[in-house]
């Protein structure tokens, strides 16, 4: 299993390493560039998954509360929407960092 993961990583990053070797400025370490793309992808996937778990819990509690007290459904729904947007904003921060890694490329 570990060998499989190592082989997959090597296969996926080998073209990036070849590309980076072509564009090497004199004396600079440029093997960080391809790995930043990899990290951006994994970070976004991780953040999206955890955000989904958090939002699932929030919606589940909100729906339970609405079933228990249908009269308060409007206020519970407002609080649920605010809670969902706040949880989602954490994944959006990771998206911003991923976009910085992909497009602004601070380390080439």
């Amino acid at each position, binding site marked *: 299993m570990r060998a499989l993961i190592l082989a997959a990583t090597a296969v996926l990053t080998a073209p990036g390493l070849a590309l980076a070797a072509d564009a090497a400025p004199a004396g600079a370490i440029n093997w960080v560039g391809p790995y930043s793309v990899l990290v951006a992808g994994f970070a976004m996937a991780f953040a999206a998954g955890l955000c989904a778990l958090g939002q699932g819990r929030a919606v589940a509690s909100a729906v339970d509360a609405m079933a228990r007290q249908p009269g308060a459904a409007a206020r519970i729904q407002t609080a649920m*929407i605010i*809670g969902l*947007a*706040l949880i989602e*904003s954490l994944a959006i*921060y990771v*998206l911003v960092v991923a976009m910085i890694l992909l497009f602004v490329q601070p380390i080439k």
Partner: protein
Amino acid sequence: MEVIEHPPIFRLPGIPDHVTYTWIVMIVLAGLAFVASRNVQLVPRGLQNFFEVVLEQFQQLIDDVIGPEGRPFLPFIATLGLFILLTNLMSLVPGMNGPTTSLNTTAACAVIVFFAYHWIGARKQGALTYLAHFAGPVPLALKPLMFVIEIISHLARPLSLTLRLFGNMFGGHVLIAIIFFLMGFDGLLGWALSGSPIGIVGGGLGTTVMIAFTVGFLYPLKILVSFLQAFIFVMLTMLYISGAIEEAEHHGSEHHGGEHQPAHH
């Protein structure tokens, strides 16, 4: 970002895009307000009626979150809300470059909110009392630590407002750009228009699927996100203002971030 840059319908020379389109939104909003308030009648009709409904909704929100002492802030909050809503929706229109897809506009709105709620709190309670409330209901030994933590969390608020609005709007932009430019929409369209029978079938099918997916699913999602993000921005502004002007005995509930329920109703 060169791969997803596409110039909007018109740009003024020497002025950045987000400034130009902010001016357009300002002209639109000011023009609508002027037209709606020209012959103010007791029984509203037409545009005045529509705007009275909109402002009534904002008034309802303010009453729910801040309470009746929040009414003087209705112009500020309604302007912020309508501006962000219109600029978000403008980024959906194909020929235009929405201002909120740039970090400058969202940071400007967040900085305005930051200074506004501190000024409102300091004006209501007096500057020194307001600052003393930062220390919280903790024993005297812990007050300096609490003060520092509170300062950091207050500084995190405009940052989170900025990044939330920017990330949602720009993320939608990047998504559309990826669907169209990087998934080969132009290639499929060229294949369909090349005239070969396989090209027409395959390219036409691919093009139709992409257009149906974008117009049928992504655009309604982006419209929802525009409304939701404007609503969240305005709601958080109101929560910060209500946190700044509340009295000392409810101070303990101020640390719970955005899930604040004011106790005076």
